[in-house]
């Protein structure tokens, strides 16, 4: 039970002038050493807020409740000094947008050495050697340590960020949209690098992205977030290829498939906007955009129910939809098409 990371009922509320706006509404996550967990969701779903809450990096206007157990220790209750020690040694972050996450006036080597010197994990005379080692680990020549960030390409900078994240040999790496701004070839290289690092060192990785295909290629398990909650959670292959929740299904269908004329003729996005977190709809928050919504959805806000996939009946997958839960209106709950029966027929024509 006491894995590497255990998040229980995490709630984040941003204080604004007219009361609080809930950005994260009761998220549970767990992660073991050597595992990778992906968190997907559209902009504003709260996935980055979850990532930042794990190390208490949110602005002071955010109120965070729940438990974040990192190796059994509650991050949210730590004293300031202990928290600073845990940052980067216990868990480190690969930030979104490496372009701006490097200080333009400092050399690459000095910036990679920054956590080493702050946490004194290596002796001062060993720092240079360790920086060389880290840069080589992410596939950069040691001579790059002498350069300023503007001499590096986007992919190289992202590699520097990863080297920096690895500096103190953390047990957990949080990759927040680590490959979002990169072109696909570099993205593939970075993903392979991250995957290799997890396999080699047995660290845990929490990967946050809006791109389900990235998560499917990298992660063992995937959680899909919508409006501050996890709506589906399970093995990456199942969630991406046979989603149970209509939102997860729409997210996975939103990627055009190469060589499939149907997806080109009828691109399947999701109409509408995410709900206003200050004034969410009653019942299931996804109801206004859901193609398979029923009258019961307006009153019931479904919790995460196990999805019984197939006859073997073991549930390592959960989804928050009335179609999945006990006594669901539709008996064949294995896969729900978000755009409804009509569009299925259209595309199969």
């Amino acid at each position, binding site marked *: 039970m006491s894995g590497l990371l255990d998040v229980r009922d995490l709630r984040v509320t941003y204080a604004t002038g007219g009361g609080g706006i809930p950005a994260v509404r009761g998220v549970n996550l767990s992660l073991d050493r050597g595992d990778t967990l992906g968190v997907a969701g559209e902009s504003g779903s709260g996935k980055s807020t979850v990532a930042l809450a794990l190390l208490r*990096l949110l602005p002071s206007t955010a109120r965070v409740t729940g438990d974040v157990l990192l190796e059994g220790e509650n991050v949210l209750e730590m004293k300031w000094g202990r928290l600073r020690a845990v940052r*980067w*040694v216990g868990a480190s972050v690969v*930030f979104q947008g490496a372009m*701006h996450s490097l*200080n333009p006036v*400092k050399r690459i080597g000095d910036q990679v050495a920054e956590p080493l010197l702050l946490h004194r994990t290596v002796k001062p005379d060993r720092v240079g050697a360790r920086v060389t080692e880290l840069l080589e680990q992410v596939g950069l*020549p040691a001579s790059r340590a002498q350069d300023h960030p503007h001499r590096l390409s986007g992919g190289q900078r992202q590699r520097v960020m990863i080297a920096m994240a690895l500096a103190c040999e953390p047990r957990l790496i949080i990759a927040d949209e680590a490959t979002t701004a990169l072109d696909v070839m570099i993205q593939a290289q970075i993903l392979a690098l991250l995957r290799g690092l997890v396999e080699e060192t047995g660290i845990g990785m929490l990967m946050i992205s809006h791109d389900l295909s990235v998560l499917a290629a990298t992660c063992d398990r995937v959680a899909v977030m919508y409006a501050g909650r996890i709506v589906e959670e399970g093995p990456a292959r199942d969630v991406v290829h046979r989603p149970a929740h209509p939102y997860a299904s729409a997210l996975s269908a939103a990627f055009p498939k190469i060589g499939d004329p149907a997806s080109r003729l009828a691109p399947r996005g999701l109409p509408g906007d995410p709900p206003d977190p200050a004034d969410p709809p009653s019942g299931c928050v996804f109801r206004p955009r859901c193609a398979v919504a029923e009258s019961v959805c307006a009153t019931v806000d479904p919790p995460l129910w196990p999805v019984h996939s197939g006859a073997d009946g073991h549930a390592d997958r959960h989804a928050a939809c009335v179609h999945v839960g006990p006594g669901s209106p539709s008996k064949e709950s294995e896969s729900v098409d978000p755009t409804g029966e009509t569009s299925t027929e259209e595309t199969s024509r």
Partner: protein
Amino acid sequence: MSAPTEPTPGTAVSPRALARKRRAEALGRFARDYARNRAGLFGLASLLTIGVLALTAPLFVDQAHLTITGAPGDGHQPPSAEFPLGTDNFGRSILDLIIWGARVSLTVGLLATFVSVTLGTLAGITAGHFGSSGGVGGRVVSSVIMRVTDWFLVLPTLVLAVALAAVLPRGTGTIVLAIGLTVWPPTARLVRAQTLAVEARPYVERARALGGGHAHVMGWHVLPNVMPVVLAQTTLLVATSIIAESTLAFLGMGDPTTISWGGILQAARTSGAISAGIWWYIVPPGLAIAVVALSFTLCGRAVESVINPRLRGGAG
């Protein structure tokens, strides 16, 4: 440009040598860009001349001739071959006084600038940093610092400096302190604004995420990024400080035992040189102050136009 500096794989060009070469290139580029700015060159040349003269003054100015008792000439002699700028009321060579006075004026100007820039940078970075990332307590600290800054800002600088110079024991140190304590608020405001801009950058968030404390963020990330602003402000402040020093000395707040440009002006006024039409007693020290202040400003603007690419096109 980048291709030849790239190390060929396998062969040994050490990264350190490469970095040294690059730094030399960057320095050369800076010098070339600076040299293109003619006003900047003029400022630099005149500063160098004055600096060398001030430093080597003991070699060619006889200190005994600077005392009232050892004055070499008669009082109020007009410019001549012996005394190129004439003599003062005691018979001292005004050229010698001006050269010797440069020592005090430049020292006080530079030291006072150092004091005020240090104060202003400290106050600005602290206020900016805690204001943006210190929570409620930080915002209180930040506004207290800025209200103190505002208080110094609204006080008339000269009056405050005169009051300080009058209260503290006489001496060069007092003048430095009086100027340093009064001209820092604009620097503090400028640095605070720049700090707020830097604090909003993702690398500051990253630094906090990797366990960096307040001191680390302020010293390692913010300070290097506000340095260009601080440097530009420094060159402009040197001129202000030299003028302030001269003003205080002219008002009789300076150390009467030292010779400074403001002091010469004051001596000229009290000895009645103005009403007697002895122009060679008044014009040279005034010109000296103006030339040094102008030179520092020209240098500052030239450096700024090299550092800031947006100013590059119009400069020259």
